[in-house]
């Protein structure tokens, strides 16, 4: 089998898994009854505008943990669709909710994700950058989501507690990546 053939085969297998997951998902309630909330923040030694230049650029989400590629469909970040390719080879698709450059704040939601990458359903978030003086900024990431398993009696890895733990770790790692990138970039 050629290399190309193997890849195609792998894609078909993946599509099969995705389809099974999708069918299982359709047969259940779309999300659990209790939405979870996390708030993570980080202080960065850089001007707020400089931090926002990275956060507000939705064409490049490479600072977000596990993201290896970004494609934006549409030009208005308030409503555009962004397809993030992850290290796993799968994608996470997000869509703009609001975009306020003056307040350095953006909001979006995820329209498609695999719970193996992010154990969450109906995820939405707001990320904002606030100045703390002239050379320091605080980034706050508010996320709202349901656990990765929508139905009753979730498996342990997709229950409320562990879904929340995993999303928090992903958000935290992303903010650390952002800090490292912006601070390394010099001021």
């Amino acid at each position: 089998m050629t290399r190309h053939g193997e890849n195609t085969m792998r894609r078909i297998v993946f599509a099969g898994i995705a389809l099974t997951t999708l069918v299982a998902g359709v047969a259940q309630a779309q999300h659990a009854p209790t939405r979870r909330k996390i708030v993570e923040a980080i202080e960065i030694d850089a001007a707020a505008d400089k931090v926002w230049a990275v956060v507000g650029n939705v064409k490049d989400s490479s600072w977000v943990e596990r993201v290896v590629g970004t494609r934006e469909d549409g030009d208005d970040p308030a409503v555009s669709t962004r397809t993030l390719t992850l290290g796993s080879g799968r994608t996470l698709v997000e869509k703009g909710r609001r975009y306020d450059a003056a307040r350095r704040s953006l909001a979006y939601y995820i329209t498609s994700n695999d719970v193996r990458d992010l154990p969450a359903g109906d995820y939405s978030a707001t990320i904002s950058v606030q100045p703390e003086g002239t050379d320091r900024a605080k980034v706050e990431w508010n996320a709202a989501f349901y656990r990765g398993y929508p139905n009753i009696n979730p498996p342990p890895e997709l229950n409320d507690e562990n879904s929340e733990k995993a999303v928090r770790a992903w958000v935290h790692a992303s903010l650390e990546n952002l800090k490292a990138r912006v601070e390394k970039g010099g001021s």
Partner: protein
Amino acid sequence: MSHRLGLPLFFLTVLLTAVPTFAQEAYVTAQLAGEVAVVDLGQAKVIAHIPLDGAPAGIALSPDRRTAYVTRPEGQSVAVLDLDARKVTASLAVPGGPLGICVDPQTGTVYVADWYASRVFVLAPAPEGLKQTGEIAVGKSPSGLAVTPDGRSLLVANREADSVSVVDLATARESQKIAVGQHPFGLTLSADGRRAYTANVTSNDVSVIDVAARREIGRVKTGDRPYVVALAGGRGFVTDQYSNTVTAFGLDDLKPAGTIDVEDHPEGIAAAKDGKTLYVANWGDNSLSVIDAGTLKVTGKIAVPDGPRAFGDFLR
């Protein structure tokens, strides 16, 4: 100078005299804080906390407005609250995921939707609080529900079935399914029971139903992820969870009447008794936004505990 002082003084006087007339309470299910917060709307602050675990979400009031019934989807039960004493007096275990809840205004019978299944539980007030007297088969993932003022029909929004079930309460059976938009969640009846409105979460619109004709007669576009509709002053007001807005529309022409910016993830919304003020629970921001139904302006904000949903009849 006197003119400049005069205007604020005028408003202050209006506000002060208005307080007793508008004095009302909100009972906000704070799902993450694990309580029902009692808000004095005149004072614009939380005046009592009624602890309640199990992720309280849905709320409905008895016909005499003295008892609240609160669903606990994670606690698999329905709590009974004495609103004057501000305490939980009883709790009835129900299976599945109790979420949406309503009360028959004629009989006081309580109906609870099982989010995980395709059924509605029938609960009757009893000396011990509540007892289950039946179960009605409806569509998949029932959420918002309401009984018509004449007590004849129960309408249920079936989130995963894109439909509204009409249950004939004389026989306690579903008599019809009405097709609506995608993923209807909240369901609101007009005061006369002639119209019903569902907020369709994924088609981003509101379905308008002619209850007697048993069919959808109109659609209104909303912001992203509408949650539930409230009615006041000839307009409908729908919370848009992802847009952080409330979309207003005319009830006669079904045309957009304006968009009101509120806070993060607005969910429950209800109109005050006077029909002039609306209260919106902002789940993400932990607040209630106060909206003037006439001017479509936000006139205030009240801090509430974590994760307010207030899904149902939460004002008295």
